[in-house]
């Protein structure tokens, strides 16, 4: 039973199409990455997923049933626009938000304290939110989304603005939750995080789905045509006929080849010309490269058809 199922949802604000015919499925126990450039419809899609806005057409199902507000108690949401009551004490705030998600006051209080320990902000518990650093506020919001032990966790840009230590702490927490069988959906522009953490991804651009599937599927659908070379000496091999694109950073080069098989020929050529090869690695494209390529393509196609407004 999929946790989230979107079927051809569409949302139009006045004249702007925010989401167009988006379909996707999230299975339990997956870490799902929702990717896309700024303004591509990620937040609009998430808002429809949790009933903050209603799609103009299409179907939203949560936990195998058509969308129903009662199932929101099983969802935890961290919005991109972070917000807490500034004048409220941290613990009161967490208890209040926990109660809104259907917890009793006592349970909410006990869990809030336990979570504050888990993410190492015990000292903040009795302070007002406005006295805390941005990173701490973000952790509190993170806790608020998880307090009611949701089965579906939706996080819009969860790691933005965190230092590497705290980002890793929260990443590990999410990985632990996934291990407990919870579905985690997060949106981000940080492809390295997605590559490291996600099982499945969906890439949307201009409101449309351009790429979806498990991380393995997505990557294996692209040829292993990238080469990372560390060399010294003659660099004429970079102009070999098989090389489509080459970026040379004085002794370290990133190559994109026309075919997977071309790598051996390029290496043979380099050796033949007496170049000293310290490292020669054939790779699949990184997610970042796929992302940029796909987003460019989605914009390019539309421009080609002449329907892009200025």
């Amino acid at each position, binding site marked *: 039973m999929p946790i989230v199922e979107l079927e051809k949802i569409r949302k139009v604000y006045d004249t702007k199409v925010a989401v167009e015919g988006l379909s996707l499925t999230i299975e339990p126990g997956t870490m799902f990455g929702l990717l896309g450039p700024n303004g591509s419809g990620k937040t609009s899609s998430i808002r429809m997923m949790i009933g*903050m806005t209603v799609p103009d057409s299409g179907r939203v199902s949560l936990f195998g049933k058509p969308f129903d507000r009662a199932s929101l108690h099983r969802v935890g949401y961290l919005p991109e626009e972070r917000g807490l009551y500034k004048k409220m004490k941290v613990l009161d705030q967490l208890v209040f938000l926990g109660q809104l998600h259907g917890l009793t006051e006592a349970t909410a209080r006990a869990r809030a304290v336990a979570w504050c320990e888990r993410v190492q902000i015990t000292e903040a518990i009795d302070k007002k939110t406005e006295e805390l650093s941005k990173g701490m506020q973000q952790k509190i919001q993170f806790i608020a989304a998880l307090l009611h032990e949701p089965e579906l966790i939706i996080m819009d840009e969860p790691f933005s603005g965190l230092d590497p230590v705290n980002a890793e702490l929260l990443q590990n927490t999410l990985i632990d939750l996934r291990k407990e069988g919870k579905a985690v959906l997060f949106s981000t522009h940080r492809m390295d995080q997605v590559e490291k953490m996600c099982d499945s991804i969906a890439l949307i651009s201009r409101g449309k789905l351009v790429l979806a599937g498990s991380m393995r599927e997505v990557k294996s659908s692209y040829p292993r045509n990238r080469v990372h070379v560390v060399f010294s000496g003659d660099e004429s091999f970079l102009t070999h006929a098989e090389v489509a694109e080459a970026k040379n950073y004085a002794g370290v080069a990133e190559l994109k080849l026309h075919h997977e098989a071309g790598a051996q020929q390029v290496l043979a050529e380099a050796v033949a010309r007496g170049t000293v090869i310290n490292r020669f690695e054939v790779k699949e494209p990184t997610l970042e490269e796929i992302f940029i390529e796909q987003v460019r393509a989605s914009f390019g196609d539309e421009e080609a058809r002449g329907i892009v407004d200025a």
Partner: protein
Amino acid sequence: MHNIWLIAKREYTERIRTKAFLIATILIPVLMGGGIFGVAAIASRSKTTSHIAVLASTAQPAQDLKKELENGKDSSMTVDLLPAAASHAALDKEMENKQLDGYLVITAATAVGRRPTFDFKPRSTADMATSEALEGALHTVLTRESLQSRGLSAAETAALMEPVTVNIIEKNGEHGDSKTSFYVAYVLFLLMYMVVLLYGMNVARSIIEEKTSRVFEVLLATITPDELLTGKILGVGAVGLTQVGIWMITAGLLAARMGATSGVSLSVTQAVFFVVYFTLGYALYSAVAAALGAMTNSEQELQQLNMFLMMPLFLCMGMLVPIVTNPNSMLSRIVSQIPFCAPLLMDLRISISMPQPWEIALSIVLILITIYAVLWISSRIYRVGILMYGKKPNLPEILRWLKYS
């Protein structure tokens, strides 16, 4: 329901705990009570205590004037009697040193039957109280003198000079005081005016607070905008009612303490209608404020729309005098039916002079219908407006929002 309760409870407890609430609770009645009763008390009880000099060539009427000014009804001044030849320059000097507040020069009448002339030179021409007291005292003295010169005895003169009192009888047959019942009506009016204005704005502000701090994104993930709106109006409203409740109870205790001596009484009818109209008026203005809050993104933008909330209240303020002087005129009857004015003006009419029962019933029904309509509109605006930020919506956009479900 549970969510509405949680929102209202948070709104209530967070507000009650603030210093602003405590200060407003204490300061508003002190300022208002001090303002109204203070001025009234000073105006009615205080006597002029200026120090003046009287320059006269003859003993009368200067001596009678001195007696009247020193022990009169409205004055207890200090009066020095000086011969007419006294140096004006010396007196001017004394005035400059603030030892003297002014001097009166009496020039005897040139012909029989004519009044003497009186020239008063005050230290400050703005000192109306002293010159009015002088005029009053001179009038009394001259009238008495003239009566006595026509052969009336001192007792007869005193009887003639006795002031007239008009007894005010209330409907229940008891003696009343039109001044105090006016003050009670006035205080109730001002109380409602201030609380509606203050707490109406608080509803708008608390909505903006959620918008600027973006908390609603988290809240809307579990509750509906309607629940949030209702909870907020109830929560902030309960704060207003608590505050008014504290004031009323304190006033009641004080009145019971001072009892008959204060002479101010709030009848049960007045109190009941005040609570009814206050609650209705409060709900109405909160609903309007909520709509304003939903349309705007910041306090500054709210200030610009503020006038929509203020205008009906100003109209009510302007109608205060016409209604007090003529509570049952056609004008009074019409404006007190306008739903935005009815809470204040109908209540004012009730405490001054009871209108027809159908008028009261009609005004309540009209207010209820308006509340429903405004809430319907504001919940629509709120539902859409809460998720729109960055840009201030224009009127066509707001009208379009009303069509969204």
